[in-house]
């Protein structure tokens, strides 16, 4: 467990115990493990799959839990399903379901927890488990026009290393249209669009004229099967994958992965390493937000502002490179701490660059606030209500712009975040402008955090040995720049990865993107897309 000193408030644990007791009473389920995994994770075993929808509804709606994701696993010739929920301020609840391998279907929880939609689609596509009463399965990761039915790549029997199958492109294939009325038409966008500078993904925009009635994103063009190819690799090799599947939030993902490894190995990271990790994570957040703001300015075609914020972003990239010897902070995290040491002079130098960027950003925000043509394009555009955001479990700055205030740095502190004072900015309007304001405010908070870290940096090692010598599974989590990231890892006693699951903020938020894009005019579409700041590669993995 990293920085065990990050305390969970006493009442937090008791809230977990209360919830577990309520679940035990109401659903007759058993607490398999008490507060295991370093006091953060409760594992509950459910024996009757039919209770699943009611149980998830109870947790999500009646107890205010946040949905963390579903992980399927083929373990010792049985199916193991994990339904993760977060009780903010307390910890994680992992509802475990063990089923015989012959099981081919499960009750869907989509009707109760809409946020589970894509998780179930992914499991159906990759494992072949059907979810009863799910409104739409199929054609998700394995695109129907090239992949034939019946391929289940995440099954253990499927060899990841085999060469790509010879595909026959089905030229007759048609996407499913939702509106489909006479007079309506569908406008396809992508996968190669914006001159390729946009990430590869596809939108089907259904319209009857000026407004987008339905916006259906079709992702996974960039799917590289990271979860599958990680299996059978050593922990260090899998870490390379965790770090490199989404480079613009590389540090946050490698941190979550390392925390999972450290929990399995029961290793405590030195306080200096934990503090430096916070420093680097906040540097990444600030740089990411500068990039997201650049994209928003570009989408509204306000050229001078986008040029100026692009300079800020590039300067932060350069500062990262000078500080950590890599512009995207690769190669720093390792299980047990950090690969290299950072001196005080280096930190001071970094803070100078950070302060410059922060004051430049504040100045820019002030100027943007007085640019009416800019604000006209953002205000009331792409609005997501608080209810929708809760319903779809939106995370990160997008969720916080719609009054969903969850931030894992506060809700379930890791790496010693509990030691620092910072705010989690949030807004209630949920429109494009609110999302922009959240980005600016968070960048300021990140700078503040970096100052606190450097001021209180303790002496000591930045790394301890972290040898995994026993089999185990654990969850690691971080608040990545785009929101909550969960990495679930199971390793064998030889330190070989048996199952790796990454639930990323983009995967969560893409599901909710259509809510913002629908009923707005075509010309607003790129702006809404930019204010959501989603990454296809982070979603696709």
């Amino acid at each position: 467990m990293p920085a065990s000193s990050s305390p969970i408030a006493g009442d937090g644990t008791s809230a977990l115990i209360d919830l577990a007791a309520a679940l035990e009473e109401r659903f007759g389920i058993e607490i398999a493990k008490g507060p295991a995994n370093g006091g953060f994770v409760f594992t509950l075993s459910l024996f009757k799959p039919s209770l699943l929808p009611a149980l998830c509804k109870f947790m999500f709606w009646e107890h205010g839990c946040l949905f963390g994701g579903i992980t399927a696993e083929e373990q010792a010739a049985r199916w193991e399903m994990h339904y993760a929920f977060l009780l903010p301020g307390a910890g994680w609840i992992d509802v475990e379901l063990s089923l015989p391998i012959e099981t081919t279907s499960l009750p869907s929880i989509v009707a109760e927890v809409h946020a589970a939609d894509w998780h179930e689609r992914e499991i159906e596509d990759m494992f072949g488990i059907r979810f009863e009463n799910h409104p739409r399965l199929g054609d998700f990761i394995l695109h129907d026009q090239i992949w034939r039915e019946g391929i289940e790549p995440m099954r253990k029997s499927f060899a990841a290393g085999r060469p790509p199958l010879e595909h026959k492109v089905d030229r007759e294939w048609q996407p499913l249209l939702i509106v489909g009325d006479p007079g309506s038409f569908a406008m396809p966008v992508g996968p190669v669009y914006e001159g390729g500078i946009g990430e590869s993904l596809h939108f089907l925009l259904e319209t009857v004229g000026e407004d987008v009635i339905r916006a259906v994103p079709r992702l996974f063009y960039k799917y590289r099967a990271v979860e599958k190819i990680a299996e059978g690799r050593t922990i260090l090799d899998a870490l390379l994958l965790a770090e490199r599947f989404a480079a613009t939030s590389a540090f946050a993902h490698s941190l979550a992965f390392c925390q999972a490894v450290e929990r399995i190995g029961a290793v405590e990271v030195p306080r200096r390493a934990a503090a430096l990790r916070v420093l680097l994570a906040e540097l990444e957040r600030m740089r990411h937000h500068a990039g997201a703001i650049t994209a928003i300015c570009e989408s509204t075609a306000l050229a001078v502002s986008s040029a100026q914020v692009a300079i800020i972003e590039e300067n932060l990239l350069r500062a990262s490179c000078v500080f950590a010897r890599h512009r995207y902070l690769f190669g720093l995290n390792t299980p047990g701490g950090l690969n290299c040491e950072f001196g005080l002079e280096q930190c001071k130098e970094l803070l100078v660059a950070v302060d410059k960027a922060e004051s430049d950003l504040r100045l820019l925000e002030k100027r943007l606030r007085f640019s009416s043509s800019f604000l006209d394009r953002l205000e009331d555009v792409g609005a997501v209500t608080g209810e929708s955001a809760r319903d779809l479990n939106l995370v990160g700055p997008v969720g916080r712009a719609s009054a969903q205030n969850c931030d894992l740095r506060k809700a379930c502190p890791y790496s010693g975040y509990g030691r620092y004072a910072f705010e989690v900015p949030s807004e209630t309007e949920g429109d494009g402008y609110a999302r922009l304001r959240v980005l600016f405010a968070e960048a300021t908070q990140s700078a503040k955090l970096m100052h606190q870290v450097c001021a209180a940096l303790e002496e000591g090692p930045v790394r301890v040995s972290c040898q995994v010598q026993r089999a185990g599974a654990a969850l690691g989590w971080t608040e990545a720049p785009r929101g909550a990231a969960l990495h679930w890892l199971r390793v064998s006693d030889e330190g070989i990865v048996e199952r790796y699951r990454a639930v990323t903020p983009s995967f969560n938020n893409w599901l909710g993107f259509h809510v913002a894009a629908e009923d707005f005019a075509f010309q607003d579409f790129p702006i809404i897309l930019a204010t959501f700041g989603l990454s296809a590669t982070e979603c696709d993995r």
Partner: protein
Amino acid sequence: MSFWFWHGLRKGIQTTRYPERAENTPGVSPGRPVNTDFSTDEAAQLAAEICPTDAIVAHGKSTYVNHGKCVHCQLCRYSLRSPMNWEPGYEWSRIPTNQAEAAPLPSAFAKSMHIMVVDAGDCGACLHEVKQLNNPLYNMHRLGLFLTATPRTADVLLVVGPVSENMRGPLLKTWEAMPTSRKVIAVGTCAISGGVFGKSFMCACGVGAVLPVDFEVPGNPPPPLAILHGLLAVAGRKSLKTPTSISEGRL
């Protein structure tokens, strides 16, 4: 609103002078490991063993780096008692090993070259660095390099990413739609060798497995100036030497 005009002017010119002059601002490039001579065979062997993608090959006391495989994990810098040497710089682009010599576009394209970018499963870093070329600090427009949104008017196909299976079709379609004078430039280690993703049922192990590649820009990710160097090489404004030996990266 007119204040933007003044703020823009007041910022002054921020653009790099590269390629007329070398750009040495700290942080423009992370550098890379280079061929290193160690004092013992064992030290060279250790360096080769620690490399997770076999980019380092030991030969006696010497090690050679194939930058087309280096994923910049920095293990050979941080985790060895005697670390590999690192070089600064960014003029890294090279010719694929299956090509005899550089074949740039005809000179008519030297001052006006249109680039089509395709993201074939990139992690976001290379694409982001290509994007940086449009910011005022690099401003590739001044060199007559333009991004275009349609393959019909494109002269160069710039591909990032290891070519995921779902992007193989769109990538080939884009290539087929281009005029046949096209050149293909693979940017980043993943586009050259598959990088950490390697060869799998979902990954083609680099652009070379799908398309004929004319130029390569190694790096994970290559910094903007390295990509710019590669583009200038395609335009025939930077000449590249053909690697002839193992020490020049021909592995």
